[in-house]
């Protein structure tokens, strides 16, 4: 499975990691809706370090589509809210 961490390139990881990521993802949804910025940032950082730890960076020369896309680590709570409300990261 290929995971892109936005701003940090792509990683090749074992598919079984997806379950763990989904658990964190659900927590993130909850934290964003409750406006808990500090905990949200921690969870996002945890998700990203999990991928970096258990995955192998993909050779930048390979051109492959990712199965999962993780937002950049410095995505603010405000930006995350925009992503959830369907406005995208940055207004067009």
């Amino acid at each position, binding site marked *: 499975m290929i995971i892109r961490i936005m701003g940090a390139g792509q990683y090749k990881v074992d598919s079984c990691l997806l379950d763990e990521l989904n658990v964190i993802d659900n927590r993130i949804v909850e934290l964003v809706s409750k406006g808990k910025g500090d905990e949200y940032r921690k969870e996002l950082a945890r998700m990203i370090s999990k991928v970096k730890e258990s995955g192998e960076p993909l050779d930048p020369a390979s051109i492959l589509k990712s199965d999962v896309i*993780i937002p950049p680590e410095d995505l603010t709570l405000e930006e995350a809210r925009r992503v959830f409300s369907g406005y995208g990261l940055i207004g067009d």
Partner: protein
Amino acid sequence: MGLLDRMSTVIGAKMNKIMGKLEDPRETLDYSYEKQLELLQNVKRGVADVTTSKKRLELQKAKLQMSIDQSDAQAKDAVKAGRDDLAKMALERKVALQAQSASLDQQILDLNNEQQKLMAAESRLATKVESFRAKKETIKAQYSAAEAQVKVTESVTGISEEMADVGMAVERAENKTEEMKARSAALDELLESGVLEDYTGGDKIERELAKAKAKSDVDAELARLKAEAGK
């Protein structure tokens, strides 16, 4: 829907924009390659912008440091002149300037991170673009139109994702440098208008110290005259 699914949707929308809708797969390859080169230029400009902003903040920081040193010297002079009130004012000014300086340090650090990230993104994109260029020529030369369609879709989709990622990184970096430019312009204005000096009394300290020095000079001169007269 989780953040990950949403993120894929966001990127997907951006990718569709980048890919455009061209019928001929060979044209799609060339069109995409052109867009990639454009984006590479954009990233380079982004890196240059961030670097300029960082330099500007560093310059401001040097200016602030000079004012801090000046306040420090004034405080010492004031203590020597026995004017604790002036020394206190100078130290208050120094503390206010130091707070500004610390906030500049943080901003410089942030811009430095941004610069490093963009440079890494530029290098990853450049590698992918080069690899795409080679692939593009192979596809054009070796595949029939029907086979080419599949290959084109694969590589154009793959590279469009990278482009969407890098494109957003550049936009976010631009937003950040814009914010910092505004803040740094405000600080420049503050320093130039002397507000920062006035409200903490920088000029007043200077005047009072000059007065104190003049007084002690007068006293010294008087003492000298008295001594002469007494001879």
